[in-house]
């Protein structure tokens, strides 16, 4: 036991050393020219379903923000929250994409197309950088919506790409989540 603990401690120090060296080596090496174009995604989960959010569609990732509910608001509108003086309307991403309603709404992103719109979801799984060759037209998910025309496959997990601009356009065109033409 003690030997295992010692081994684990030694492994941890080795890991820390490797991390340090790798971090330092990045700045010591010459800049890498990317041959293949790739996109960055946020791997998230809405309920139990995996999704991907394109970095270009979001303005920031946040966690643990306090959302103040508004009386008489539609079901997809969770409420409002504040970002350094800006009021942001927070929508339930699960309700917008037609998936299950999110349970915790712990994580939230601000959309790049309109920084006043925030989308809350259950879980942030990490950052994913995928080559564009791995972005495929899925033709929509079963029972899907027009927001999911593309999907990215990461670690054998197919993640539909949420088209945030379309969602924001839908919200705006509907004058609110309840007036959206697609029913959101």
């Amino acid at each position, binding site marked *: *036991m003690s030997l295992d*603990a010692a081994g*684990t401690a030694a492994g*941890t120090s080795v*890991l820390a050393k490797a*991390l340090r060296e790798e*971090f330092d080596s*990045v700045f010591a090496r010459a*800049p890498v020219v990317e041959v293949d174009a790739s996109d*960055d995604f*946020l791997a998230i989960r809405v309920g139990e379903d995996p999704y991907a959010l394109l*970095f*270009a569609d*979001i*303005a*920031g*990732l*946040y*966690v643990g923000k306090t959302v103040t509910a508004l009386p008489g608001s539609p079901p997809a509108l969770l409420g409002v929250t504040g970002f350094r003086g800006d009021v942001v309307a927070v929508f339930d991403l699960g309700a917008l994409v037609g998936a299950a309603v999110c349970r915790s709404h712990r994580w939230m992103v601000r959309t*790049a197309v309109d920084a006043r719109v925030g989308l809350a979801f259950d879980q942030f799984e*990490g*950052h994913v950088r995928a080559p564009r060759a791995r972005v495929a037209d899925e033709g929509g998910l079963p029972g899907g919506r027009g927001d999911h025309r593309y999907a990215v496959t990461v670690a054998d997990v197919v993640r539909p790409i949420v088209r945030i601009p379309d969602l924001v356009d839908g919200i705006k065109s509907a004058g609110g989540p309840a007036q959206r033409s697609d029913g959101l």
Partner: protein
Amino acid sequence: MTVRRWTFGRRIAAAFAVMVALTVVVGVISVVALDRVVASKDRVINVNSRVLIDAQTLSADFEAKSSDARGYLLTGDKSYLAQMTSELQAFQSTLASMERNAGAANELPLLTSIGQESNAHQQALDGVIALRERGVAIATVAKAYTAQVNPVRAKLVADISALSASENRLLAKAQQSSTNSASAAVGIIVAIAIITALIATALGFALARALRRQIGKAVAEVNSSSVELQATANQQATSAREQSTAMNEISTTISELLATSRQIAESAQRVAQIAGQTANAGRSGEQTIAKAQAYITDVRRQVDVIVDHMLALGDKSQQIGGVLDIVTELAEQTNILAINSTIEAAGAGEAGKRFAVVADEIRKLADRVAGSTKEIRGLIDVVRSAVNTTVMATEIGSKAVDAGNEQFANVASAFGEIADLVDTTNEAAREIELSTKQQSTAVEQVNAAISDVAQSTNETEVGSRQTFETASQLTTLSRELGLLVEPQAVV
């Protein structure tokens, strides 16, 4: 109780009593009969014969007085007168006596008549005597005598003769009566004697029958018993011989037992020595157990220390988990910052590309930190689980140590008991040794007693032979007795 159940002696006594009673009855009857006969004879002798004798005496006195009177008349001698007076007095005395004793009916008138005629005769005689005194001639006197005295005399003689005849008849009658009485007495006595003889014969027959029955039965039983006694004596002699043989075997066995007892005594002595050594070993084991118990107590203490350390390790692991939560949160925040930086760098265009590289590396670091944090959390969970398992195992070990300690205490107690028991065994072995020695002494005494018993058995055999001979003699004697009692039924 019936007569059949009487003993023979009692029956003989009863028979003798009956015979004695009959003899007494015969004697009494004989005495009564003899008394009556004697009384009858006495009456014949004393009354009838006396009256007859008195009658004869009266006649003799009268004849003597008459002779004296005739003598005087013839001789004139006065002495005859005196004698005549004396004879007259005797005559009157006898007559008076007869009158007093007169019993028959005709006796008293005859005596009265004789008295009157005697007086008349005396008066007549006195007249003649007076003539003689006056000197009258003899012839005259004789004539006067014949005329005056003889008729009276003849009448008086006739009365006296009649009296004698009457008395003779009475005497004969009394004699006949006495003879009849004696004959009756003889008849009664003879009859009673015959009855007594018959009874005696019947009693004798009954006694003889009872004698045959009882004594014969007793003789048969004695004979049977003597035969059985012979058989028993024979068996006793055989048993005595077998007993003598058995006694010899017992004596041999007792000798072997004596040798065995001595061996047991030696073995008990060795057992006592071994028990002493075992007691020492038990005490040594007890000390060793005490030391082991002390070691176990130390182990228990060390186990407690280990448990404390493990619990502290669990607490530390929990604290590490808390720190790791902070690190995880920091990694998460770092990741968020890196992502947001990347987003911001992407928005900055070409100017933000280098910053995007830094942010990306920071994000990678944050990812790696998050992954490492997960691994550490997993390791910590493993450590906590291992700590819990260790604590549980240590608790189990502690309980096992407690149980072992208790078992050691039991073992120590058992060693103590073993030592005590070994001491008891030692003491018992010594007692066995002492008892075995005493037993050897007792066995020797038993051997001597067995020898005495064997000698007594030989004497018993001799006695049995004597008993056999005595029983044989008793058989012969019973047969002889049976011959005496019932010759035709001799066994």
